[in-house]
Structures are given as C-alpha cells and as structure tokens.
C-alpha cells in the first residue's frame, strides 16, 4: 500500500508476528521503525494517516532491545589493550562478530597498561554508531591502572598507579585524555580518589568500583561522590563479611543517595561466579544487575591452543586456561550465552534476563532515553531471539546487520 507521510519520507518498517519487550513485559505487539528509531504507530495512523512500507515477519521471535556489553577486553584473537598499529581495525573485527551474539553496542575495555599504551590506543577508539560494519562503540572502559595491588587479579602489577599528583592530573597524565571514555574502574580506597570520582562524574564518565580492598564505608563514600557501578561483583574485591560487607554491601546499602541506583556487573558464564552467589546478588538487588562478558581475546576462537600476546591459552568448552594449567585466564562466554545462563541459574523471568543485558547497562551509562528499550523514539537496535534465547537476527537503527543461517 502506498503510504502518505506528511512528516517524513523515510520508509516505515513493521515487524509482525513477534513478542516485544516493553514496559518490562513481553507483549504480543507489532514493532514499528522509521528513520532508525522506534515509531509510535498510533500517532502514525491518526496524525499522518500513514502505514508501513515493508513488513518483516518475525515468525514468533522475541524482540529485545539490542544487548549492551560494558566490559569486553577483546575477542577473536584481538586484544584491545595491545598497542598495535591498527587498533581500530581490531575493534572493528570484534564489533562485527559480536553482532552474532545479539550485542548492538559495547565498551571496548582496556586493562591496566602503561601510559604509552593508553596514549597510542585511546585516540584510535572513537565513539561511533553501529551498523552493518558492527556494533556501536559507546566509549572505552578503562579498567585500571588506579586499582589495588592486593586485588590486581590478572593485571600487571608494575603498571598500577595511585593518585600522587593530585588526582585529575594523574588521570590525564596516564590516559592522555578522556574523550570517548565511557567508564573508569578504580579502587576508592586509594588516597585522593574522591576528587577524581567527582571530576569523572562531572565529565559524564561512569565511575566503577573494582579491583579494590575498600570496606563498605569507603565504597559508600565513593557512591556519594558519584560512583555508580561495581566491576564484576565478587571478583577482585574483599569477600562479603557479615560485619563488613565491603563493596558487596552496596547492593543493600542504605547510604545510596535517593533516586540513584548502584549497578553491578556479573559475569554469568557459570565459571567465574558460583550460581548460588549469582542468585544471592540477584535476589538482593535485581534492578541493578548488569550482565557483562569480560571476554578476553580468546573468546570466539575454536577449542585448542592459541597464542595471545605473551601467553599460550588452551580453550576447552567454555573454559580458557593458561596452557598446561588449570588457571583460568579469562572469560570466553558470549553475551547471549550469559543471558541464557543467567536465566537458567537465577530462575528469573525472560524479561529480567533480557533487561539485565539491555535496559540496565543503558541506565548505567545514562543512555536509557535512546538505548536499551523499545520505547517510541529510542534507537531501533534490536535482537531477535527464539524461545530458548538463541539469537536469530540482529538489527541496528532498524537495519538488519546479521541473520542466522537457516
């Protein structure tokens, strides 16, 4: 049918035979898209007397807002922390491949590195929209180097730093600049962190607490100063103690300022967090849970041995070991695997599982007005799933960017 559009000439697409995630429920509704955004069909009908140019039959699929991964260190052999000459090429390879996992936006993550690496890598990774070329980059996640030596995990100790020069000065010296930085993970117990947290928040950078031995009070102070995320809860922080819950205690802290939410990342690959711990966190604070992959360069590579940087990694199923040992060298689960595992382990609803990978990370980054939802006006970044939450197709700005072979 020819359409009569007095407002815009852009073609209108109607997704039919689908269930969409809207207002926290899966609803049997059609989804309308125009100009890369979700369209209000009732307004189209009554105000413009317009209708769809094209119908996409979703064959009963679930449509969720595209997944957003705020912590991913690389994949497919690419390591974002490597100061190669073609960093943006590496980011593009990963950006393209993660479309298959339903991820439409992500934050390339850099682990603790020397200033030279930051100075070389950061200018090459710009915030940009996704499309056929790959998932959109929302900004870089800088995990370190201002972290605790006792909780460095796999980060190289010699490059850890503290706020010697007065906080913000150290930031700029180390990173070279904060343009295109979406998030910084730091340890709040480091002296001088308060002014850094405030300065970062003022610049619109999300501050996350992690790789830290902070007690609950120090963590709460950081939240009062603006910190809003916890990097991979339980890992690289003091364990929960009933007289000092540490950073974990933020999930139920009564000192979180009104109207603000503390979000927390969970690696739900079934390996890095015991399912019982996952359930405790989820039940204590369901609306703050953000699924992250924390994937390393080995993610996406086939089983067997691979040389990555200075290390040889062995991949067996979902485990990636330092070759010849049983030491885990990082996570290689994909985002859709994490969503499925989270749902199965926590017993949560489909809607909750999907929101943990879409709405919550968007809220964390302050982007929920245009990402992470299927509300009218939001960017049409969509992931089509079957009932078992396997990815069937991925769309960015209303355009199909990946489809599973039948």
């Amino acid at each position, binding site marked *: 049918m020819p359409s*009569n559009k007095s407002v815009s000439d852009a073609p209108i697409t109607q997704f039919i035979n689908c269930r969409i995630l809207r207002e926290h429920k899966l609803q049997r509704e059609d989804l309308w898209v125009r100009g890369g955004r979700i369209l209000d*069909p*009732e*307004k189209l*009908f*009554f105000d*413009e*007397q317009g209708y769809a140019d094209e119908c996409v039959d979703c064959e009963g699929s679930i449509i969720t807002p595209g997944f957003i991964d705020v912590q991913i260190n690389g994949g497919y052999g690419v390591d974002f922390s490597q100061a190669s000459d073609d960093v943006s090429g590496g980011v593009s390879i990963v950006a393209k491949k993660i479309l298959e996992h339903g991820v439409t936006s992500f934050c390339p993550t850099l682990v603790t590195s020397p200033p030279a690496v930051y100075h070389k890598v950061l200018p090459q990774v710009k915030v940009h929209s996704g499309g056929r070329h790959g998932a959109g980059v929302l900004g870089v996640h800088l995990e370190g180097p201002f972290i605790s030596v006792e909780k460095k995990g796999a980060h190289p100790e010699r490059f850890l730093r503290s706020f010697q020069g007065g906080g913000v000065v150290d930031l700029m010296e180390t990173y070279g600049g904060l343009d295109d930085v979406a998030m910084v993970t730091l340890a709040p117990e480091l002296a001088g962190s308060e002014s850094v947290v405030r300065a970062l928040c003022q610049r619109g950078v999300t501050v996350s607490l992690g790789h830290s031995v902070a007690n609950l009070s120090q963590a709460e102070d950081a939240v009062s100063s603006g910190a809003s995320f916890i990097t991979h809860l339980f890992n690289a922080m003091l364990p929960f103690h009933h007289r000092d819950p540490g950073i974990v205690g933020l999930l139920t802290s009564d000192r979180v300022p009104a109207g603000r939410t503390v979000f927390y990342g969970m690696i739900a690959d079934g390996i890095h967090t015991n399912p019982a711990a996952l359930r405790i966190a989820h039940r204590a604070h369901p609306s703050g849970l953000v699924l992250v992959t924390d994937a390393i360069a080995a993610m996406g590579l086939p089983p067997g041995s691979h040389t990555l940087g200075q290390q040889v990694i062995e991949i067996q199923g979902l485990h990636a070991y330092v070759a010849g040992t049983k030491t885990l060298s990082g996570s290689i689960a994909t985002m859709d695997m994490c969503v499925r595992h989270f749902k199965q382990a926590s017993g949560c609803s489909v809607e909750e599982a999907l929101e943990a990978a879409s709405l919550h990370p968007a809220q964390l980054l302050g982007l929920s007005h245009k990402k992470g939802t299927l509300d009218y006006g939001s960017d049409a970044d969509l992931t089509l799933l079957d009932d078992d939450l396997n990815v069937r197709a991925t769309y960015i700005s209303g355009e199909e960017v990946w489809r599973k072979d039948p």
Partner: protein
Amino acid sequence: MRLVILDDYDLSSEWAAKYIRNKIIQFQPSADRCFTLGLPTGSTPYGCYQKLIEYYRNGDISFKYVKTFNMDEYVGLPRAHPESYHSYMWNNFFKHIDIDPANAHILDGNVDDLEAECQAFEQQITKAGGIELFVGGIGPDGHIAFNEPGSSLVSRTRVKTLAKDTIVANARFFGNDLSKVPTMALTVGVGTVMAAKEVMILITGAHKAFALYKAIEEGVNHMWTVSAFQQHPRTIFVCDEDATLELRVKTVKYFKGLMHVHNKLVDPVLSIKDQ
C-alpha cells in the same frame, strides 16, 4: 425490527460479526465505492471486533475499501489517553486490520471549534454517500452513542454534556474516580444514525435488560433514545439471553422462533477467498 437472541455474549458477538462480514462482502466494495460502516466503542462490541479481526487474519475479509465513522469521542481527553475512543479503536480494531488510515473517521474532541468539527463530520458522512450499516450499543439509561435521555430524536452530530448515569457507568475506566471522567463528548445524533441504510444495535448483559425493554416494548420516547429505531425500516437488535430478562416471555418466544430466518443472514458466511 429483527430481534436476534443468542445464548451468550460470545455467540451474539459472533453472529453480529458474521452479519457485518456478509454485508461487506455482498457489497463488493472497491476503490470507487467504499462500504461505509458506523462503529461503537465499549465492552459490548469488543467480542464482535475480536471476531472481525479473526476473519481478517484468516483472509476471509478485507477492510481496504471500508470507511468507518465512529459514533463519539470525549471532549478534552488527550487523544493518546488510554481511555480515549481513538485509543480504543486503535488497540481493539484498527491496528489489527488493513484499513486505510484515511478512511477511519473519529470525531476530534480536542479542537478549538467543536461545532465546526461536528458539522464537518456530518459532511464527511454525506460525502461518503451515507452510512450503509451503523453498528451501535445501548447505555443502561437507554441512550445510543451519547444521546442522553432528553436528546432530540432528530438530532445530528453535536456536543453533549454527559448524564450522571453515564459518568458513573464510565468511572470504572478512570480508576473509579468520578472527577477524572470527562463531562462532555462529541456524538452523532439520533437522526444521524437513523439516516443510515441499516442499523444494528448490540445489547448484552443483564444490566442492559431494562433499557432493552424500554427501547422495544414501550413507545418511542426521547428519554430512551434507542427507542427511535422502532421507526427505522431496517433495524436489528442482537442480544444475549441475559439482555432479554425484562422482556415479555411472548416477545422472546416469538423472536427465538424466528432464528431459522435470522440465521439465513449469516449462513452461509461469505469469504473473499471465494470471489
């Protein structure tokens, strides 16, 4: 009149939907000659709309060349409000079928000049060649559309202030808060509906029984405006058992005895697939 009595709400909704379906298909609407349908809102016609949507989904009927004219709309209620009649029609009918948006006419209760809006609506009906079939409901006070007791039986589309009964009846849609219910509405007149070639009134439920009795077993009276259709050459009342509870046994037996005649109007049920 024809009084078509079915056992329950679902059967009466289905009968009414089949009738509408047959009328549209028999008319053979085309680009130059649309079938004009007057439509109601509310809980009574909901089942009928569901069946019509089902027939569309099965490919048995198309609304491509159907023009619709709704009976009424609240004044001052934002169009996007979930209780506006625009929202009702969109959610319960239009979004599920293939109607051309330009063919769906609903009064706009948010314009500055309400009188002009009413007159324009009457003109649109005239321009479309008049209404072939006007489907309506009945209020507990016997009103058709928002033609409250006391409305002129020859009235046309105009602004009406709602009666207390109507406001109370509608409160359930506004969280049972009487202060939130709109007090005025734009409505087609009794005369507007009388001008249609054929009128079909849907009445279901025991709470409508007294109104049905007043409408068909007592005289034509402006206090029960649906009674005006006693003077229309082609009126069908479609109801369920419960709606007949206040009628005389003799009336009910007579019309039930005619069901084999009535059912010829819906059996066989036509389909565009056969054309």
